[in-house]
Every structure is written in structure tokens, then in C-alpha cells.
């Protein structure tokens, strides 16, 4: 009940949906993107602070704590003297309401590949045959305007999808701008194909207009303005596979907006996919079904700078105004 001072009792948050946000993990250094709820916890859901990217609403968001706490026994008779965390583990599962390159990549668990337009006469291949040659970008290109010149622009149509990234250079390790989209074990494994980076990159966009040799994109490329050496490859869609050795990893933020103005935030600095590509069917009306991308993830640890503890997840609670605490 509210008191004379105007405060009301703190009530259990009532929420409708969960919103998910993505930020990259630097796979080379293992550095996650850290969300600071003390600084940014109250952000507008449609405008997350950089570098967080909105993944949209998710359904059936389920957190599981699989940490095992065991007792330290001593004495006669044996009695619990203290406790230890023998194993710390946390998992998250969810279904994305929105389909997009990022959601596909996260839900697939492994490389999420771009179906690059194939070269004439390319042999059939499950993840797309040999791609046609990429198109160079002029230096004045930006995150939303790709200057390919008038001749190359004539090869594109409004509505085309494009992948923008550097050529694969023959090295081993993580590839892909903005987000590590795959791991190359050897140049031979990818046929030393220059298009391999663009085949797996998450730096994709859709052409919304063409003018003066410039492809205007419907939204900014996630990697920002193209770096020197980046080229454009047209693509027709996306493909992922069951199997493979690569694991997607991301920094995740989930927000539950309370009806009283309160908010619960779950921040997993490092989530790795723990299942292959899976969908859940939601019946609309026979025979219509909505296909949702289903993802399951295992949390990996980070060190909290506050006290050096290794942790998997941060749950923050921002109480409603004038509610008792």
C-alpha cells in the first residue's frame, strides 16, 4: 500500500514481451561488449545505445540457471559446514519474431552464409556455387551509399541484396567485418576463394535506390562506411548448415519492460550457440503456421571489473518511480 510519503509497495514486474539486443564479441581478443545498466539502463527500446543492435521482440524467452551448489561436509556426524559452487552454468533459449541476417546467424549456431550470385556455369553446391566476381567500391562510398560507378550499377536492381566486405586474403583465423562470421582453418579449406569473406559476412544490406552509379541502401551497413579494399557481391538469400565447427558468439541484452515503469535487464556478455538451426512452428489458422527462428545459447564467463569475480550474466532491476525498495 502507498504510505503517507507517497511511496507505493514494490510489486512484481508485469511485462508483456522481451526485447533482444545484439553487440559483437571480439573473437580474436575474447573481449565482449559490456552493457552498463547504471549508465544506459533506461534507454528507449527503439533506440539502443551504440553499439547495441535491436533484434526485435522474442518469444518464449527462457533462462536456466544450471549452477550446481554443493555442501562442504565435515564433522561426526557429517554436517554441512559451508557451500561451494561446484559448477557455474547458465543457458538461454528464445524464439525470434523477426527474420533477418543477424537473427538467422545467431539461431543457426554456426556460419550463416550468403547465397552469392553464382558465376555463369558454376557447379551446383549446397551453400552456393562459385560466385561471380565482386565489384570494387569507389572511396567516396558510405555506410548507406555504395559508389560502384555507372557501368557496375547497371548490373543491380532496386531490391537487390548485397554483401560488402574485404577479399579473403589467404590467412587463417576469424573472418568478417563488424562481427567474426566464420573461422578459416586453412586457405585450402576455402579454396583460397576471394569471395569467402563476403560469403559469410554479416555486413549485408538491401539496395533501395540507384542513382548516378551509387547504390543507396535501405539501412546503414552494420560495419559502417566501407573500409579500403571492401567490395560488393550481390546475393539472393542466406543459407546455414547443420554441422560445421564454428560457433557464433555474441554479447546479448534482454529487456523486460514493466507496466509500472520498472525494468528488468538481463545482460549476457558472451553467449555461444548451443544448438543447430532450429525453428518452432506457431499455428495461426489451419493450415497457416508462423515459422520462428529458435535459438539456444550457453553463457561464457567474463570478469566483473568491480571485484574480479568471473560471472556469466548480470540481472539488473530498475524500480518504478515512487515504489518502495
Amino acid at each position, binding site marked *: *500500500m*502507498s*504510505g503517507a510519503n507517497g511511496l*507505493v*509497495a514494490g*510489486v512484481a514486474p508485469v511485462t508483456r514481451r522481451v526485447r533482444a539486443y545484439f553487440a559483437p564479441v571480439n573473437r580474436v581478443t575474447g573481449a565482449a561488449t559490456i552493457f552498463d545498466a547504471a549508465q544506459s539502463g533506461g534507454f528507449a527500446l527503439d533506440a539502443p545505445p551504440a553499439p547495441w543492435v535491436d533484434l526485435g521482440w522474442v518469444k518464449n524467452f527462457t533462462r536456466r540457471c544450471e549452477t550446481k551448489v554443493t555442501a562442504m561436509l565435515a564433522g561426526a556426524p557429517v554436517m554441512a559446514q559451508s557451500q561451494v559452487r561446484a559448477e557455474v552454468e547458465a543457458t538461454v533459449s528464445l524464439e525470434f519474431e523477426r527474420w533477418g541476417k543477424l537473427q538467422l546467424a545467431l539461431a543457426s549456431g554456426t556460419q550463416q552464409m550468403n547465397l552469392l550470385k553464382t558465376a555463369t556455369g558454376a557447379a551446383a553446391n549446397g551453400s552456393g556455387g562459385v560466385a561471380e566476381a565482386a565489384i570494387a567500391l569507389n572511396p567516396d562510398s558510405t555506410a548507406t551509399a555504395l559508389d560502384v560507378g555507372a557501368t557496375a550499377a547497371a548490373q543491380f536492381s532496386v531490391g537487390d541484396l548485397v554483401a560488402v566486405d574485404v577479399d579473403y586474403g589467404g590467412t587463417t583465423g576469424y573472418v568478417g567485418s563488424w562481427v567474426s562470421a566464420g573461422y578459416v582453418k586453412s586457405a585450402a579449406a576455402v579454396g583460397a576463394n576471394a569471395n569467402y569473406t563476403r560469403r559469410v559476412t554479416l555486413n549485408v544490406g538491401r539496395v533501395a535506390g540507384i542513382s548516378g552509379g551509387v547504390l543507396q541502401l535501405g539501412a546503414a551497413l552494420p560495419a559502417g562506411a566501407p573500409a579500403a579494399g571492401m567490395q560488393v557481391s550481390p546475393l539472393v538469400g542466406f543459407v546455414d548448415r547443420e554441422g560445421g565447427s564454428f560457433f557464433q558468439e555474441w554479447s546479448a541484452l534482454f529487456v523486460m519492460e514493466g507496466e509500472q515503469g520498472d525494468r528488468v535487464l538481463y545482460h549476457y556478455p558472451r553467449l555461444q550457440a548451443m544448438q543447430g538451426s532450429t525453428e518452432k512452428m506457431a499455428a495461426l489458422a489451419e493450415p497457416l503456421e508462423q515459422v520462428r527462428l529458435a535459438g539456444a545459447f550457453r553463457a561464457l564467463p567474463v570478469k566483473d571489473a568491480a571485484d574480479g569475480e568471473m560471472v556469466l550474466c548480470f540481472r539488473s532491476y530498475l524500480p518504478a518511480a515512487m515504489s518502495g525498495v
Partner: protein
Amino acid sequence: MQNAKDTFYMALRGRLAELNPARTMVVRGAVRPGIVVEENELPSAGTSTDAFVLQWTALKVDPHGPMPLAAMSCDIRYATDGAIARTTAGTTAGTTGNGGMDRGRMLGEMDAELVQAIEPRSAMKMNYAETPAAAMATRVFWSDVVFGAVKAVGERLTRTATVLVFAYQEAGEL
């Protein structure tokens, strides 16, 4: 609970007036946005057309939490005979001669207005018994709209939509 009911009505009224300023009705001689709460008006046997009529029905109170949580069911009834011409003051002036053939479209417009007006599905609870109205400490929130089937009464189309409205009872609140 009266504050929650008033808050829900005023939220819808303000939003509908913004969405479609031309949807008005005359109530006791005054031109108002086309939405009323049935229990707040004089009893009438007639059916208001081209306006939303709120009727509070079921009530359930969960007294076990830190604050009692009231769940109130609100039926929102609306009906149309088809297009009506409106004066600049927004009052009904007569049919346009469409012969009621646009009554489906008109009902669809009201459906769409209600879908928009219901969002966002919460509002700060206000005490309208005070002047000016005073903000309270909690928020009123409500469910999605559940649209009932269209009923045809002669040429008139009617629909009832239902919303479940929730509110915490603050100390001393009636």
C-alpha cells in the same frame, strides 16, 4: 477502481480525438469526442452510431499481493450505418447518399482507430475527482483488444471489442 476506469476512458478519449478529430458526438448539448462511458450518461434505449461506447462489466480483485490488483473487463461497443456527413463542428448532418454501401469501410475505420488508440497499453493513473486532475503513484495497464464478431442489425453493423484493464489499488483509494 474508479480512478482506473476514468484513466482508461480519458486515455482513449484523448488518443481518439487526436487520431480522428472529426469523430465527435453531441452529449447533453455539448460536442465531445465520439466516445462515452455508458454508466456515466443518462440511460438511453437508443444505440449511438459512429461513436465508441464503453461498458464496464466483470471485475476481479486479487487482494493477496503487496497492493490489491483489480482486473476490470471493459466492453467497447460501436456501430455504424455507413458514411455520414459532418458539419465543421463535427455534428451529424445526414447521409451522403451512399445508401449504406460503405458501412463495412466505416466499421473498418473504427476498428483501425481502436487498434491505434489502445497503444501504448498503459497510462499513469489519474484522480479526475480533483481539479486539476492529479497523477497517482501507479500506472493503469491493459490487455490486447479482443474483437468480437460483427453483428448486422438491419443495415446497421455493430461490433463489441473487449479489453481487460488492470490497476493496483493504492492506499485510501476507492
